[in-house]
């Protein structure tokens, strides 16, 4: 039970990141390898906003944790939009692989920049709010309040995203734009704008996950690189492009990993890939994916 809860804790981060990836892939057909870097960026922007604005830019303003939950995703989302407008836009006509290579390059650049300024051993994020600093007695274990908050908050964000895309007018327009862009444009909808905003939103989700992760893990230039491969596996297992698949497989795989850490720890870092191979063998489109 305790281990399952810890697994869920890891799972919500998988879910949030793979959700962003799935949205971007499902709606735009871009394999966004820069997603891990956006997650890392989210954590760093929160850290810089909390501790270094004054030292670096002479701005006597401290962006606290709560404000970071809004400001940081907005910033990272904006950066995503700039990347989409200036670079990715030119690649839509080409094969998936070009987008993948471009975003991979962006990842390496961002990681290089940050490991140059911050050393690779990680920096603590000191901005965790007092109210979440305690520990809850759940009966079967003591659980840090902050981790519980991160679980609940992430779940809300994940399901809200799913609801918007699957059950609102905005979502149906998005899906229509993806399905048949010329026809949708003929109805007077601005499809390129929708695509840009969607990419920005996906990046913002990664940035938000970064903010949530900062108080739990050390903020380090490699935190995204460590995670992105796992998250890709999660997306593949859930089914490329499936929103609900990304959320549910993210949560489930987090728990599988958590239980593996108890049963056979050395396999903890590989169990997800083992499952990925199995899923690809028996259901190539993923658990929730649709065969095309």
């Amino acid at each position, binding site marked *: 039970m*305790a*281990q399952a809860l*810890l*697994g869920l*804790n*890891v799972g919500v981060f998988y879910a949030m990141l793979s959700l962003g990836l799935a949205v971007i892939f499902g709606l735009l057909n871009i394999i966004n390898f820069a997603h891990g870097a956006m997650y890392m960026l989210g954590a760093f922007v929160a850290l810089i906003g909390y501790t270094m604005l004054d030292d670096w830019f002479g701005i006597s303003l401290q962006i606290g944790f709560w404000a970071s939950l809004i400001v940081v995703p907005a910033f990272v989302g904006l950066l995503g939009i700039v990347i989409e407008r200036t670079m990715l836009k030119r690649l839509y006509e080409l094969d998936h692989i070009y987008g993948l290579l471009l975003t991979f390059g962006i990842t390496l650049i961002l990681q290089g920049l940050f490991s140059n300024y911050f*050393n*690779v*051993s*990680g*920096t*603590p994020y*000191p901005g965790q709010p007092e109210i979440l600093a305690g*520990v809850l007695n759940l009966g079967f*274990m*003591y659980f*840090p309040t*902050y*981790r519980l908050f991160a679980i609940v908050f992430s779940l809300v964000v994940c399901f809200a995203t799913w609801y918007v895309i699957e059950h609102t007018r905005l979502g149906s327009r998005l899906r229509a734009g993806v399905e048949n862009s010329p026809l949708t444009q003929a109805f007077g909808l601005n499809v390129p704008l929708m695509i840009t905003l969607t990419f920005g939103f996906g990046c913002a989700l990664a940035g938000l996950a970064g903010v949530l992760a900062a108080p*739990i*893990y*050390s903020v*380090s230039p*490699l*935190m995204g690189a*460590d*995670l992105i491969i796992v998250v890709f596996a999660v997306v593949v297992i859930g089914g490329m492009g499936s929103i609900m698949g990304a959320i549910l497989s993210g949560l489930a795989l987090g728990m599988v990993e*958590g239980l593996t*850490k*108890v049963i056979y*720890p*050395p396999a*903890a*870092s590989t169990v997800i890939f083992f499952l990925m191979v199995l899923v690809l063998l028996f259901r190539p489109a993923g658990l929730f994916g649709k065969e095309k």
Partner: protein
Amino acid sequence: MFNLKTTFNPKTAFNQRNLLTGIVTAVGLTLAAGPLSAQEGLSDDKVRIGVLSDMSGVYKSLEGPGAVIAAEMAIEDFGGKVLDKPIDIISADHQNKPDIGASTAREWIDAEQVDMITALDNSAVALAVQGLASDKKIITMDTGAGTTALTEEQCTPYGIHYVYDTHALPVGTATAMVKNGGEKWFFITADYAFGHSLQQNTSDVVKELGGEVVGNVNAPLGTNDFSSYLLQAQSSGADVIGLANAGQDTVNAIKQANQFRIVQSGQKLAGMLVFITDVQSMGLDIAQGLQFTTAFVWNQDDEKEKWSRRFFDRHGAMPTMVQAGVYSAVTNYLKAIDAIGTDDSDAVRKQLGEMKLNDMFVKDGEILANGLMLHDMYLVEAKKPGESSEEWDLLRVVSKIPAEDAYIPLSESKCELVNK
């Protein structure tokens, strides 16, 4: 017939005469100058000390530029001169690359008349430089690297290992902790060679002293989330959770142990390799209760504190054990030259081996035949936030680990110099 060519060849004759002159001159010079250069005076009218460290990478804060400052302070405190000749420093960044370290050392020795090389954090760099320098009869006083190979398998006649090694750290910590009642151990081990050997070393000591290892978990290198492993450690009922890992893994594990109130609920954390700069960057909120072995605590006594505050004024951070070690190494190197009146490496090394080392860093230290500087170590504990009186007041000394307990005894040394 008289044959000019065979009986008198001007070329050969000239060469023979030249050779003879050469031999006579050489013998004469050797006789005249030999005793001088070997026994007294300085080889090149100055003593030059090379500080070779990581000035930009992951070890920058624990040695790096602070080591240069420590060496400068040692020279100033010595009066800036030895045997009436100036002392100066040369420094460079080895970038944690053995080839860069070795080529810098080679250039220093061949072109810059460097007499002694110190710092050398990073075991791979240290081994490369120590080997090269010894071939050229240059003393190295390594303060930063951990590997015992420097004084064991790869020991050299001119290599000295000064501050700590990977035997002293876990063995020192484990011995002291078991004696203080921490009998049941659980290890969280980085799942690669370094972690496994750290765990093995430590387990041996624990068992030898009658303690018991109740379990271990191998965490993949670079694990983000240690919470699952920490809960296993918690439910194992161990007194001590040994962290057989390093760097970010250690920081992550300690941080998350704090989130789950591991230390507050009675278990001790034992880090195998931790520097004061790590504790400072973690903060006491997180680090409190962490026990580890160190060679130096800056505010342990008045003499150390006085020196450390001078160091702080220049560097902006309190000295790590390896930075304080650079000060001590340079000081004692100069003392040795002063005592015997020469900087000849063989004579200085012999003198260093015979004298007791005493300064603010070390009391009654001695340098053994294999190059190991034998000295006491300390088991320390990170204070609770309320116990700390200032920013860098982070550590409390729990107990002294006598030199003979901390280090590999000479009788068990694998160094070939020992059995001669």
